């Protein structure tokens, strides 16, 4: 049998996602006031970042907004050293980069974001970190450029 054939196909598909009632409020606060907001469950009082309309544990509405952070604690972290195709850009994601899960002061959950450190020996769980906000903010999660270790 001759060599099996492969048919290549390159797709460029545009998407646009609604930030929603909760996300819009969060990103407006972030863009206009550099504030990170959480929304609390009306029953168990967990403060959620990302915000959400309903608490999955209580199935009760989340209604009360509170400011959290801006500082927080690094819970888990990594430094990515292996590159891959980034579906956000269609290109290889630049490496190395640090990222981790940050428990913002007052929040019940941990936010995934970049950590401004690529030497993993300088990172450990429990470190205090603070956000670096972008100068020109657009109303999305990248308005926080990264989190930086509080020295």
């Amino acid at each position, binding site marked *: 049998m001759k060599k099996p054939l492969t048919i290549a196909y390159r797709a460029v598909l545009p998407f646009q996602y609604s930030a929603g009632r909760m996300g819009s409020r969060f990103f407006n606060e972030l863009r206009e006031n550099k504030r990170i907001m959480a929304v609390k469950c009306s029953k168990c009082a967990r403060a959620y970042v*990302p915000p959400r309309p309903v608490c999955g544990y209580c199935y009760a509405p989340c209604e009360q907004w509170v400011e959290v952070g801006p500082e927080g604690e690094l*819970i888990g*972290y*990594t430094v990515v*050293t292996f590159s891959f195709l980034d*579906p956000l850009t269609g290109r290889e994601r630049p490496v190395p980069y640090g990222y981790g899960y940050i428990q913002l002061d007052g929040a019940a959950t941990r936010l995934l974001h970049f950590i401004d450190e690529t030497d993993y020996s300088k990172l450990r*769980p429990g470190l205090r970190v603070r956000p670096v906000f972008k100068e020109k903010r657009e109303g999305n999660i990248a308005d926080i450029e990264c989190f930086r270790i509080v020295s």
Partner: protein
Amino acid sequence: MKEGVMGRKVAIVGTGQTHHKARQADMNITEMIHVAVKRCLEDAELTMDQIDGVLIGNMEHFEGINLSDMWAVDASGALGRYGMKITTGGSTGTSLSMAAYYHVASGLFDIVMAIGWQKQSEGETTAGLISATDPIWERLGFAGAFGTFGAAATQFMKEYGLTEEHAAKVAVKNRQNGRRNPYAHLKLDITVEDVLKSPMLAYPVRMLDMCPASEGACAIIMACEEKVKKITDRPAWVAAAVTRHDAPFIGDVPMFMDLRTLRSAAKEAYARAGIYNPLKEIDVIELYEPVSWAELSFIDALGICERGEGGKLIDKGITYMDGECPVNPSGGVLCTNPIGATAMLRVAEAAIQIRGQGGERQVPKKVNTAVATGYGGNWWSDLMILKSSL
């Protein structure tokens, strides 16, 4: 699930799988599914006209295609039959297996086939995984499975004092097991030193700590008690099937690798199956370990050791092929990972151990109770317990 209610007795009476590879260039998706289905029917000594329904699934995004249940309908055998597609990410294969079990246990169907498949080289694995996360909140920094498990492992190491050597031992154990499995994708004769010297993907996860991206398919057939008697004298009975989902964002859970979903699923499943001392009563485990680190932690969620003592367990050799509780005699996910089939392979391999069909990968003892797990989503777990008799 309703306590004390079992439904009809159901057993796995056949399994089939492809010889998994990085790339199966000589087969398209339909042809690959056909191989697994054909082998499964042969194993059960059944023909397609004896199958009442067909369930099929893969993890979407990877190949960039969606309606495989439609265009692979002839090879799957679903043409003109009951059936549906089930896709739940990494746990697709256990979701399909459980759904087949529920179909038959309900009394509405006598014999049902489930098929899981993936052909990873046809798309971009990490891009596919990123596309499965929330587009607004998590895609920016998320680096697929190796990034997630890197971040989870740093927390886990600090909490319980586990080391990179512990993880490397798991990577070696499963790869050495995989060498005895003719269907395994990776057959690597490696040492702990090889693992610790392999390239870092995302600290502390190295290349040899991570599962491969594979192509392959798996199929299983479930039958009701009345039919089982006519099909085989070596059935693998389903004693329990439990699923647990966790919160929507990766950072929602407090202790990433603690896998509270598996801990909770195991508690319910053991109660249903009458297991009181998991280490003594479970003969073999096929655990869904996407990374070496996961086996170290998920095993304590199953109650095989105390919390955080997965490292000691591997140090003592308990989970080796000839240990008290062998984990992944097939080589596990670290050797073979066609995602939509991966969790079903855990169920199929557990059934193979019960049925004594493992050949060189058969554990060296009588297997009466086998556990298979599925993992996916954000820290989701599935768990099935199979027994040689009910």
